């Protein structure tokens, strides 16, 4: 660990670039957890609804896409934020 810190002290720019990359990974990874679970719930319940009432499949599908779009937006905020972060 001390060797790493000594290396970092020699090249401060590299440390910052590395930490920026790590931060980007954490931001996007963290932002993807919740929407991942959420989209799973949305699609799973939509499939249940379609299987129970195939005649209402069209409406369930439209609503499912709407639900996916709302849920997915959070993950995409994280994706864009990861690009905005600069060292």
């Amino acid at each position: 660990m001390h060797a790493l810190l000594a290396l970092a002290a020699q090249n401060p720019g590299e440390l910052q670039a590395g930490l920026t990359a790590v931060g980007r990974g954490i931001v996007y990874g963290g932002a993807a957890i919740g929407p991942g679970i959420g989209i799973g719930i949305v699609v799973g319940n939509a499939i249940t609804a379609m299987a129970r009432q195939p005649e209402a499949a069209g409406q369930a599908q439209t609503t499912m896409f709407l639900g996916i779009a709302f849920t997915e937006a959070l993950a995409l905020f994280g994706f864009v934020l990861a690009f905005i972060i600069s060292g």
Partner: protein
Amino acid sequence: MHVLALDFPPISHLIRWPTIFGSGVWAVNKVVLEEWLAVILVLWFFYSARKGALVPQGAQNLAEAVVDFVRNNIILQTMGSEGLNWTPFLLTLFTFIFVCNIFEVIPVIQMPVNARMALPFFMTMIVYFIYHFVGLREQGIGAYFKNMLFPPGVPKFLYILVSPIELITYFFTRPLSLAVRLFANMLAGHLLLATFAILTATLAASTYVGAVVPGALLVALYGFEVLVAVLQAFIFTILTAVYIGGSMHPAH
């Protein structure tokens, strides 16, 4: 100039394309050329479908299928029959976004216009002003803000929480998420395809065998990106329909 994607452009031009002609605000680069091409394609598509023959053929056939799709799957599902007046607007929006998106997978173009924030932002601004304008016109200023801030059927004490959230939703989150959703999806798709293309090319040049798996994945991802292009155009249009429909008739 790498206007046509015949070989790999430098990695810095992955999204930031150099100016071809013009300068300052009027600088024209590859993305602007694609936008012009999309406008011409959409106009030509609907112009060539104008014949109105009883038995549709060619472009008219396709155009009627698209109109039917927007009408049945977008407007009637979300706005009801009062929304049919919005068919031209939503149809234009859907076709234009789709053409702009599908450039991502067209050989020798391979750059989705919507991977730059400019066009999603501009279209979102149009939608933003339209749904507020429709809300003010249909409901009047008092009723519009009353229905926005105090949706009926919520317990009184919860309005402390609900009203600020609704205000932020209407004025900030809706336009932001509408623009960012389209933009980020296309940007992610473009980066994904570029990454796999570079990976495949590098591995093919060095090992031949190693390129098989990334190459196969690249082909599969192409199909997936066609799906994403259609889906994002659909979602942008249907959300526009939902917002306008919500402004026309307040939540019950």
